[in-house]
């Protein structure tokens, strides 16, 4: 496996270099996509399947789609080289960051206190997957704020109002593709959502996959843009934060602790919150792709 890992690591670096230095913008984005998939594979090899799933769905998939979408719209960068001060600053920063990471990985002995604590409390968390237990029970407050980050991102986009042209259908092969892919993504998203309780999966991955299916549908030209479509999507997108906040307050009313789920019902609460988050994340990511308002 050593050989396999070395090949992945080298390929990651190669793809990153291509993404940085490719002249053609589309080629650079393609290299970035490949790098994302390779990074996801590396996470899998490092024994972090949850991160791998998120990286593949969001880091490679959706970010790649967003970049491809913008690649043509942004005017060509000027051929001017970066000013030396900027270049030097960026190089120094990257070196410092890479050095610190490398040094951490090689020298620092990780104090493994937290996993033991999680395992000890896992039976009370309502789920069997420790990652979900941390994200939606022990440290649910972090996740609530992360949903607020998504909300803030959407609010910023609404302010900046980037120009999003109408999405043109992608040609005759897209429709049959979407016909196959869309039901699959819905099925897969539901599966990942449910699976999050006991195995890798959860709202972020499920939401990203759902958004991917919806984008495929949009590119197939099967659905015409509808007037209230964006408003409904925006409503769905902000529903996630709203539902999470209301759930947090409701839990406090019931148990006296903020985000403290009633004993025995933790799994139901977690699933309900995650379902709302899945829809909201999918709507948010979709809105990032198609833009909050249509302009021509």
């Amino acid at each position, binding site marked *: 496996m050593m050989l396999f890992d070395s090949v992945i690591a080298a390929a990651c670096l190669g793809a990153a270099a291509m993404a940085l230095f490719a002249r053609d913008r589309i080629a650079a984005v393609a290299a970035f996509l490949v790098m994302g998939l390779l990074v996801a594979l590396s996470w899998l090899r490092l024994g972090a399947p949850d991160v791998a799933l998120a990286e593949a769905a969001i880091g490679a998939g959706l970010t790649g789609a967003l970049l491809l979408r913008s690649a043509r719209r942004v005017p060509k960068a000027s051929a001017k080289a970066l000013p030396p001060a900027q270049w030097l600053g960026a190089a120094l920063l990257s070196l410092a960051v890479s050095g610190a990471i490398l040094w951490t990985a090689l020298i620092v002995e990780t104090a493994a206190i*937290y996993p033991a604590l999680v395992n000890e409390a896992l039976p009370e968390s309502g789920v069997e997957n420790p990652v979900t237990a941390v994200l939606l029970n022990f440290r649910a407050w972090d996740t609530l704020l*992360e949903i607020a*980050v998504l*909300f*803030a991102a959407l609010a*910023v986009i609404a*302010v900046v109002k980037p120009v999003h042209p109408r999405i043109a259908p992608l040609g005759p092969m897209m429709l049959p593709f979407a016909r196959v892919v869309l039901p699959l993504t819905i099925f897969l998203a539901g599966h990942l959502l449910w699976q999050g309780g006991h195995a890798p999966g959860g709202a972020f991955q499920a939401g990203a996959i759902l958004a991917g299916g919806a984008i495929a549908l949009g590119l197939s030209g099967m659905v015409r843009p509808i007037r209230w479509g964006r408003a409904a999507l925006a409503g769905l997108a902000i529903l996630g934060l709203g539902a999470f906040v209301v759930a947090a*307050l409701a*839990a*406090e009313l019931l148990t006296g602790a903020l985000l403290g789920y009633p004993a025995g019902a933790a799994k139901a609460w977690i699933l309900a919150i995650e379902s709302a988050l899945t829809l909201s994340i999918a709507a948010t990511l979709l809105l990032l792709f198609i833009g909050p308002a249509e302009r021509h």
Partner: protein
Amino acid sequence: MSDISLIVLLPLLAAVLTAALPRQAAAIGTLATGLNAFLAANLGRQILHSGTVTEAIGDWTAPLGITFDANGLASVMLAMAAIVGLAVSLQAAAGPARAGFWPLWMATLGALNGLFLSSDLFNIYVAFEILGLAAVGLTALAGTRASLRAAFDYLTAGLVGSLLVLLGIALSYSVTGRVDMEAVAMLTQSDTGRIALALIAAGLVVKAALFPLHFWMPGAHSSAAPAASALLSALVVKGALYLVLRLSLEGGAGTEFLRNTLAVLGAGGMLWGAWNALRAERLKLLVAHSTVAQIGLIALAIGVAGNPLETGLWQAAALLMLSHALAKAAMFLAVGRIAEALGHDRISGLNREELRPGPAEFAFAIAAISLVGLPPTAGFIGKWFLIEGLIDKGGIHWIALILLGTALSAAYLSRVVSRCLRGGPHVSATARRPPWRTGDVAALGLATGALLLGLAAALPISLLETPFA
């Protein structure tokens, strides 16, 4: 339902509602800021009465879960955000409706409240992400080319800062195995831990716009809309400064080197910001550079505090943060009104024959007095605490630097005040007065607050003196 839960969740709920109902956004937002102020006052009263209040979220205690820690310092910061927020909301609700302002501002308030109360490094990092993104939106709100450019610079600088903070937190998790505040004292015990702290501090220096990493800030703060500038300058940079202070308090004596660096950078910022403010041609830019100088002063105060468990010098830093927030928000709101009345904000054009000084000029002058630190303002109390503590400690060179910074701030602010408030033969007999607007009320209210706070400084001081849990 506890006050702590309400004060962190209410703004987020209001953010959702203002986004869902744009027509009622101003009413919902103002109501939420009012409720927030009430909750902050109530929490402060509770802390004065019975000391630090802690709350384990979901009943999972640290280090497994996240705890809220409502201590005296947090309470002063909450009050700072609440007061500035009230004035800014008032101004924004009365001014021209800008779509998108309210959700961003409510998210900012929620993030700030969460940041001040949280006792968990990673959780604070997530709050910073909300704060950083919302601040980018607030900068871009003006819709001009300059503000978009500034927003992009803000985003880039913010991301670099976030990356450094996150890296530091990851490293500190490897070293200590936990991310709650207890980890900070452990970090100071080893070299690796100190490097982790240095990385976090470096990220915070970018986010707080401390010299020499402030390059992105004057542009952002001077090209945003007045209400947004007030929020950015008075509150958003305080989030990072607060965390620096908190780390210094939690780290005890173990962060000597970092504190010295902070003091030196602070002194540099104080002089560099003042120098640029002296040369600025536009009023908003002058106020923004003055923020660089004031952040420098606050960083200096945190840096020279020495072991915060032994001296009360850190309280001077907290008081300076509070007084700067009030004065700077008043100043930005006043500048917005002055620019509105004049149609420009060139300092050379402030001398007007046909327009008498109005309430906005008056508010600017009071805020300037507080920033310089003349009695009886809040700024005076902060500087008094700082200099008194330094005399006890024997830091005469720091005192000299602070006095130099003070003289410079008096110089650059009098460039504006002397032009604004000039009467007599320079004003023609038929000159009119600018009409009163809500923006004037907000600016004047905040400036008066800075003045009154100096007289009622016993309240924040007794809050800061409540023992930490």
